[in-house]
């Protein structure tokens, strides 16, 4: 079934694939600060089909309180701060401490919307617990997670990797996607192709991932 159901804010698997490819291409073209999103073809049923799979963005630093303070020091080009010692040493220490994240976007056949799966790691490769992740999220993200009826984190089995990942539960997604999609005068086709950027504008905020503004204008 093609076509976004603007009454429910959902989309078909085929449209998810189209939007994912479009989104990742645009991200990779415009966002040189970040690694590329990569499409991993994968099937729940065994046979690899070209248009089923998920997007991955791995080993990235998110806009966390911890990483932000690292960034400020690292980007301090003209800093005349007497407290800073040898800059090279500082960079070493803090990038060694940096927490990295893997983000996966997969399609939920149950809810007919995208779902974010993510994991965080310390510099030694140890996984971060959900509490540890929440501790370093920007305050805005924590607020959304705690107070919004639409976004809450749980732990679920990754639909393709069969390992436990943290996820933003998809049950509220249709509700707010409905609002976003009805805010434009785009036709159906443009709405569909912009689905993932629209979706990520909200989901990204809950985990500290900033989406460049260019991605929100249809090309």
């Amino acid at each position, binding site marked *: 079934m093609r076509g976004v159901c603007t009454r429910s804010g959902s989309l078909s698997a085929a449209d998810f694939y189209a939007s994912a490819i479009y989104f990742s291409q645009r991200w990779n073209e415009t966002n040189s600060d970040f690694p590329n999103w990569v499409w991993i073809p994968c099937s729940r049923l065994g046979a690899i089909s070209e248009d089923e799979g998920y997007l991955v963005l791995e080993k990235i630093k998110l806009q966390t309180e911890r990483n932000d303070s690292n960034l400020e020091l690292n980007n301090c080009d003209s800093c005349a701060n007497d407290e800073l010692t040898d800059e090279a040493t500082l960079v070493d220490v803090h990038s060694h401490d940096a927490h990295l994240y893997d983000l996966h976007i997969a399609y939920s056949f149950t809810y007919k919307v995208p779902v974010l799966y993510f994991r965080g790691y310390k510099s030694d490769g140890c996984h971060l617990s959900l509490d540890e992740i929440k501790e370093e999220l920007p305050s805005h993200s924590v607020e959304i997670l705690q*107070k919004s009826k639409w976004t809450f984190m749980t732990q679920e089995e990754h639909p393709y990797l069969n390992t436990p990942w943290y996820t933003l539960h998809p049950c509220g997604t249709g509700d707010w996607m409905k609002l976003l999609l009805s805010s434009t005068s785009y036709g159906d086709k443009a709405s569909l192709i912009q689905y993932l950027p629209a979706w990520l504008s909200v989901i990204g905020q809950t985990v500290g991932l900033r989406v460049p503004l260019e991605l929100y204008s249809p090309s």
Partner: protein
Amino acid sequence: MSSPRATESPTSDRKVVVHLRATGDAPILKQSKFKIAGSDKFLKVIEFLRRQLHRDTLFVYVNSAFSPNPDELVIDLYNNFGFDGKLVVNYASSMAWG
């Protein structure tokens, strides 16, 4: 001799007209249009809405199908997504039940 420094961009000193639109069952503001400095972050709009509506959690989005990151500058949002001399900001209630 003046030290080299970036010239203050005239656009960032501009005021931007923001038009707040209630959607869903969110309460409508008595005054829905106001001006904000372009150099302010979108966070200011969000906080203004929260204070006016006495709601902690709002779903705030613009007419181009996305919810702006609070760190975005208002002038950037207006330049890219403004229309007819203003930036339209929609809001809906998203408070948790119970």
